Structures are given as C-alpha cells and as structure tokens.
C-alpha cells in the first residue's frame, strides 16, 4: 500500500492523549453548539407551525400539535454529535498509522459491535428519556469507542519507537 510518508508523520504528530483541560474545552464547545441547535430548532418549529396551519385550513377536525423536544434529548443529541465526529477523526488517524489489516478488521468489528449496542440503548432512551442511567450507558458507549481508538494509537506509537537492542539476559 503506497502512502505519502509526510502524511504518515503528520498523523503521528496529531496522535495525542486527551489534554488535561479536555472536559472544559468540550463543555464550552458543547454550550456553543447548544446555541446553534436552538436556531435550527426555531426554524423547525416555524416550519412545523406553518404545516399545522395549512393542515387546519384543510380540515377543522384535524390538528397536529407541535411537540417540544425534551431538554435531555437535546443534550444527548449534542453530545452524541460531538463524540461521533471525534470518533470518526480518531478512526481516520488510526487507519493512517496501522499497517496491520487484521488489527484494523478487529477494530472495525469491535466498533460495529459497540454501535449495535448503542442502537439498543438508544431505543431504551426513546422510551425513558429521563433515566440518567440509560444516558450514562449511552455516553459510556461513546467514550469507550473514543478511548479504544486513542489507546491503540498510543500502543502503536510506543511500538514504533524502535531500538536496535534485541535481547537482554539477566
């Protein structure tokens, strides 16, 4: 597999562990994103109201109420969106430095299994969006995906620090 060696080193440079202030950074970004979300929901609401008005015009007996999205669902959607973007970035970084197809296939399978689990937990969340334990399961699932991708990159980075010493006998 041919690869531009400059890309290889670039990927390695980007390989970092979580910075110490990652929580604060993340929450700041999250809050900023929440504001953006509100704007998009406003448009959605306007559109929904317009549709309802049109529907009422056709039939006095038919009324489609607009439904407020629960604050918890909005929060989880924002967190999910942010995590998935980071997971995707880490996946790209991982496949850029991993030269073992078996390893990549095993991680692909592992991430698929985690995603399948996530879909099951999401169903539980739909039915019980106020259950913080379900929310914790969702977040833990996303964290696990991100963490295993960061850990394996760190592992590969250590292995790639080669030396000539082959054997020590004590």
């Amino acid at each position, binding site marked *: 597999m041919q690869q531009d060696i400059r890309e290889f080193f670039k990927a390695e440079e980007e390989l970092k562990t979580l910075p110490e202030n990652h*929580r604060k950074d993340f929450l700041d970004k999250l809050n900023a994103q929440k504001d953006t979300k509100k704007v998009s929901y406003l448009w959605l609401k306007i559109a929904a109201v317009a549709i309802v008005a049109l529907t009422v015009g056709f039939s006095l007996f038919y009324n489609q109420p607009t439904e407020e999205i629960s604050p918890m*669902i909005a929060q989880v959607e924002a967190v999910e969106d942010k995590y998935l973007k980071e997971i995707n970035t880490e996946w790209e970084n991982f496949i850029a430095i991993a030269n073992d197809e078996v390893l990549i296939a095993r991680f692909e399978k592992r991430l698929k299994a985690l995603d399948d689990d996530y879909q099951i937990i999401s169903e539980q969340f739909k039915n019980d969006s106020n259950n913080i334990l379900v929310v914790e399961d969702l977040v833990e699932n996303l964290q696990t995906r991100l963490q295993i991708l960061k850990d394996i990159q760190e592992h590969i980075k250590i292995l790639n620090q080669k030396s000539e010493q082959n054997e020590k006998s004590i």
Partner: protein
Amino acid sequence: MLITSAMGFGQVKEIFNKSYDAKDLKSLNLQFNGTYVEFSLSEDDKVHFDYTLEFENYSKKEIEHKLSEIKTEATIKDGVLEFKTSGSEAKNDVSYSLETLYGIEFEGDFINFKEKSNREFRKSKQYFLAINNSSRGKSLKEYLKNLREVDKNGNKKKINTKNVKILRTKFSIKLPPEIMIRVMAENSNLVFKNDINNQLVVNARTTQLKFQSIQNPFNILDVVNGSFRANFLEGGTYKFTHVDEVQVAQLKKVDVDTEFSNIKVGEIAEKVRIVDFNSKFWFHNFSQNFREFQMSSDYSEINLFFPEKSEYFIETYGYNTVHYWAKLITEIPPSRKKEHSKMMVIGDKENPNKIKIHITNGIVRFGEDFIDIGK
C-alpha cells in the same frame, strides 16, 4: 399469581414465589433479561425462587403497566428446571424513575473520562477481596445530584424527591449445592452471595456479574460486555470479550481467553493460562507455589509485578514488542521471518515456578512495588 401488600411507604407485589425439590432435578436452566437477582445457598435441598417488587410513588395504573411487562415462567422437563424472566428492566436492587412536564437537564460532566494515574502501586490480594465484597448502588441523593427539572419557562430547579418513582427489586434464588446450573443473562445484574461449587455454565451479555468463590473444573463462563468481579476462580474456562472491568482476587487452574478487556488480578496461583487480543492486564501478586503461568497475546498491554513469595523463572518471547523494567527498556522490532525472539530471562530455568510470556505487538511492564505507565 400476584399478591399485593403494603410495606413502609411502598406497595409490594409478589412476582414469583415457588420452591422445587432438587431430588428430581438434574440441572437448572435460568434465563434472565433485564433483571436483578441475588443467589444464595439453599439449606434444604430445594430450589427456592422469591421474587417481589416494591413500588414507591407509583400510581396504581403505572404499577399495573410495569407488572404487565414482566414475564416469568418455570417448567420442568426431563429433569431440567427451566426458569425464564424478562421485562423488569431493573439493573440494580433499587431503580429510580422521573416524570416531569417539561423534562430534565443534566448539569454534570458528560465527558467524565476516568483519569489515568502515571504510577500504579502493587495491591494486595486482600485489597481485591475487599472491593469485590463491597456492594452499593447509587443512593437517591447521588442519582439526583446532577439533575435539574425544567419548568415551562426553561428555568431549572432541584427535583423534589416526592416526584421520583422508586422500584426496589428483591429477587432471591436459593441453590442446592450439587445441581448443575446453566445461566443465560442479558442486560441483568447477578450477585452470587455464597461460594459456588456446582458445575456452572454461564453466557452473559451486558450483565454485571459478582461472585464469591467459583470452584469446579468443568465450569464454562462466557462473558460479553458488562462487568465481572470474583474473589476466587478455580478450575474451568473463562472467556471475556469487551468486558471493561474484570477484577478477580485470585486465579487458579483456569484457562482464560480475553479480547478487548481490562483485567486486574490480585494473585495468580497454580496453572493459569491466558490467551488475549488487545486487552490490558494487571497482575499484582503470585502465590507461593504458582507453578506455571503462561500467557500468549497479540496487541496486549501487560503490567506484571514480580513474585514476592517464592523464587521464580521468567522467560519472555516477543515480536514487535517492548518491555519496560524500571529504567531498562528492551525492544524486539518486527523481523523479516516474523518469528518471536527471546526477550528476557530471569532466574533459574529449573525453578518449578515459571512465568512464560509469548507476545506479539505488545507492551510488557514489570515492577517491584510500582509500575510507571506514563511511558
């Protein structure tokens, strides 16, 4: 059969209460989905099921709805008692549920990664016995700590505990000592309160498992996701796949197959063999006569504290692998022949207490009292 009674502030509903004479039974087949169960030893050679739920702050309609979702059945066929239950969705002995008009918000940290410390100290076997014995779910105060109720104007306020529905699960199964037990569990929480010498076959998925001592050479446990804690495992084969927390105080005469898991062992005793792909291990101690510990792994991270209770012989073979021991670093780069090379030898080859590690693409750290993992 449902029996209702009032107890304290809650309503108690009996889900299943039956006993079976074990004389006519060859084995038990237990299937749990979304259930919290506590197992203990039966003293009268009978299998006892005692399953009740206690509801607090639930309306009559809500209780009826919850009960209608719980399916429980037991049948006996050819000497096998098959028991199935699902629908409770209680993963702990106490579960909380909130209902609000305008929803709730979480004020805590969604990005709460476990902080890694750079230096890990050797822990005693007793340390693991103590943590494995501890059992505590979240209190209502802890549960509500970071939650705020939102009113119609978007203002946040503390949640009134009177609005929290509490479901207490009391599900006890008492097991006679000889009978073979087969368990299939999904999204559940199983706590074994006594030592188990029965033959045990367990398939668990996304389930929390907690054992005291499990001893039987024919045991087969296959655990996917969830967590696993035990004091002593002796005999049998264990498979842990994607298990984020495996904590065992002592391993003895077991074959363990692991993948993408985190494993902490208080003490390795006789004849332990481990095969792994991409897991993290902490081996804190070795027993006085551990005889032989064998490990074969790929992309693993192994942290091993040297045996203290006896003389030993260590031999490691590696391919594309790094060893750390204090300030000494030994590395085996990938070879053209893709063969493992001898990396480290400590002690006398004739010593009966042997540690043999074959590792590919791995990291091994050795330590006396502590191991630095920041490198």
